């Protein structure tokens, strides 16, 4: 397969994830969209690692996965705190920081 096929697949998954981030009401749903977008980036990294025969792309994909795990842990902790304070995680109703 040409690399373009993998890159277009990554772009499509990225766009789908972006749609989820933009349209989900629930904060956990927004996190799901971010997961998809980061995942799409990993496809690109792995594809370029294969194209150039260089492991740097795979190593960077590993770093991305680890950072995503940290991001999910922190994001869900924040979601749980928000739920405890406001009894909702509907992103449309979260305006605590509005001036």
């Amino acid at each position, binding site marked *: 397969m*040409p690399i373009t096929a993998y890159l277009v697949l990554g772009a499509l998954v990225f766009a789908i994830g972006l749609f989820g981030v933009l349209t989900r009401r629930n904060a956990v749903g927004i996190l799901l969209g971010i997961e998809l977008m980061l*995942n799409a980036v990993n496809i690109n990294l792995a594809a370029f690692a*294969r194209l150039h025969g260089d492991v740097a792309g795979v190593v960077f994909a590993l770093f991305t996965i680890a950072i995503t795990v940290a991001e999910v842990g922190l994001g869900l902790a924040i979601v749980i705190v928000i739920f405890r304070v406001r009894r909702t995680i509907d992103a449309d109703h979260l305006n605590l920081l509005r001036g």
Partner: protein
Amino acid sequence: MTAETVGFCVVAVVLIASSLGVVLAPNLFHAVLFLAVALVATGGVFLLLDAAFLFGVQLLLYAGGVVTVLVFAIMLTERIVGQRLSQTNRHIVNGALVSAAVFVALAGFLVRRPGGAALPAVPGDATVAIGTALVGRYAGPFELLAVLLVAALLGALYLARTED
């Protein structure tokens, strides 16, 4: 049609369908299950790209760890399982337009660049090279990542603790 082409088509269809399920499923719990399918399908893409180690990490960390944590978060924050309001906000048309525009821009750029040739085969097992790179050239970032993970998870623990 080579085996790689067939495999790519199957994995791509599964990945796109489950990704759409993630963003469109009315029940958030189903969305997480679709996400698990999408992550495993991405692992399939890694296998096609001869990154077997990445496939293992993807299954262990993402499909195993992240999905479990997400399920816990949903169970902790949803008051009534199975019955709730619309999951999408009023920006659904705008969101679709913006994401379609992003995809068209990216794909338009990608198909105009040269690179139609098939990917070269990778000689041997790349896992050894990955291990060497992680403790050699990328040892600094790797250790920094460990510190970042500990800091992030301690922060998450601190945030989510109960007051008593």
